[in-house]
């Protein structure tokens, strides 16, 4: 228990000291020290100042919007992610390879491009926005717009998490369950779902984490209205960095809360991945 943290057991492979030195140095310089600055900055505030900064109504509103929208988006992504992964693994149909390749478009397409494009599509002058308006739904510049953007950026996380697990799951399992008299739905619930659950949770967690911190794709379609509650947390932080209204203390305090939320999620994702890898390797 009292051993040094990075102590190694004997190994014949050379390069431990060198690679450890480089890894820790770069990790500290690029990630840890800058992040520690945010912590240091927010710890300069007294507890009462800190609480006052993060409990302002518009800040709480932004946290509510970010968390709620990313939760809904991640859930939507789980439904479509499972269906997409399922058909990409189990079925053959024309255009399958194209679809498989394009699933990762949200990773490759810059978020700002996605943001302005989705905004124009779903605003009342856009193709989908106009149709939705006819049935009384205002998509852009509302919470629904934020959810649409988060569904867009989150979908590849879920699909890519589930695909490998489904590939390893032989279809004979389903056939056996089906022949033994289970209905399709029962087969899915009792046979397939337990297998993909850890991977699904991982994908859900990654999509959720991405959604909560998302900036580029969300800020155009949200409209950033305090009155409509469509400001997200990252927008609030960015506003506080802009010249004219610089408020580093406020930004650091909000960022700290967001960091804590992210770390808790990272922790949970890692545990889930650990469980998932145990399951698929056994």
């Amino acid at each position, binding site marked *: 228990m009292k051993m040094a943290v990075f102590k190694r057991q004997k190994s014949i*492979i050379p390069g431990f000291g060198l690679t450890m030195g480089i890894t820790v140095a770069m990790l500290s310089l690029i990630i840890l020290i800058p992040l520690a600055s945010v912590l240091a900055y927010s710890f300069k505030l007294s507890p009462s100042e800190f609480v006052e900064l993060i409990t302002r109504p518009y800040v709480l509103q932004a946290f509510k919007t970010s968390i709620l929208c990313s939760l809904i988006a991640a859930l939507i992504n789980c439904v479509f992610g499972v269906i997409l992964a399922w058909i990409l693994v189990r079925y053959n149909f024309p255009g399958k*390879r194209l679809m498989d390749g394009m699933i990762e478009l949200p990773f490759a397409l810059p978020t700002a491009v996605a943001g302005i494009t989705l905004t124009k599509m779903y605003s009342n002058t856009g193709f989908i926005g106009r149709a939705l308006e006819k049935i009384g739904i205002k998509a852009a510049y509302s919470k629904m717009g934020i959810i649409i953007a988060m569904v*867009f950026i989150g979908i590849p996380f879920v699909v890519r998490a589930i695909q490998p697990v489904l590939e390893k799951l032989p279809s004979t399992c389903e056939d056996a369950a089906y022949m033994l008299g289970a209905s399709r739905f029962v087969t899915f619930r009792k046979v397939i779902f337990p297998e993909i659950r850890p991977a699904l949770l991982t994908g859900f967690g990654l999509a959720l984490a991405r959604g909560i911190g998302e900036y580029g794709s969300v800020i155009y379609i949200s409209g950033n209205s305090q009155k409509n509650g469509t400001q997200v947390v990252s927008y609030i932080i960015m506003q506080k960095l802009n010249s004219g209204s610089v408020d580093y203390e406020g930004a650091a305090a909000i960022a700290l809360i967001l960091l804590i939320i992210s770390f808790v999620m990272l922790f949970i994702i890692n545990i889930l991945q650990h469980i998932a890898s145990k399951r698929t390797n056994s």
Partner: protein
Amino acid sequence: MEKHDSKIAKWVLIGISVLFFIVMLVMPLIEVIYRSLKDGLELYMSAITAENTLSAIRVTLIATVIALIVNTFFGVVASWLITKFEFRGANVLSTLIDIPFSISPVIAGLAFIMTFGRTGWATPFVDKINEWLGTDISFVFSVPGVVLATIFVTFPFISREIIPVLTAQGRDEEVAASIMGASGFTTFRKITFPHIKWALLYGMILCTARSFGEFGAVYAVSKARGSTFTLPLEIDALYMSGSADSITQSFAVSSILVVMALVILVIRSVVEYIGKKES
């Protein structure tokens, strides 16, 4: 698929997927191209050859290339460390490396401002070094700042792709090579590298895509249009200026990134295909 009802289920599921796929992924692409060209080719060409756009292309390329080099180096070193040696804290280390995946890019920008900004604690040191060297390097609101922010957000991309491959491969081959007297570098080059080359390439592709598209982190540390703006920032500036022409121009500049994104996806699919075939 000999069962009748499973055929119905199959086509219903495919139908849902295709609909989702077209609405969420295909239509936005068409929208960008349509909006960028709707006011004619002349406006399109003037937008993508504007001075600000060219400057943004330059900064984007600089940031992407440097981020790619730094992260490739780091990714390979870190994954070698984490998979080839048994040590306490390996899990903690790999979790720390993954931090940028799950934190808001805006926080990355904020972190650099609080380190190197006017009130940042590292600023006096940087000033002293600048004085001493006679230089004027700044890590915020400058190209080096943009580069740093880009490196931050893409930091885990390469190690994340390599680590699973190396974990699956195990250590026996490297141990054997070392016992026979191969140096660390030779062992890496001859034994490890052939295993990871596709994963490495795959990680580098993802790193490139994220680098040229990063917005939030870079936006926080880049304020000068025409000198430190990247392409996504230029798109934002054009879009936010609000006139019909400038919005069309912002979609024109976006179309450059759309083409790059599609190229990335094609290369990615090819790499994945060849990699799978080989293994």
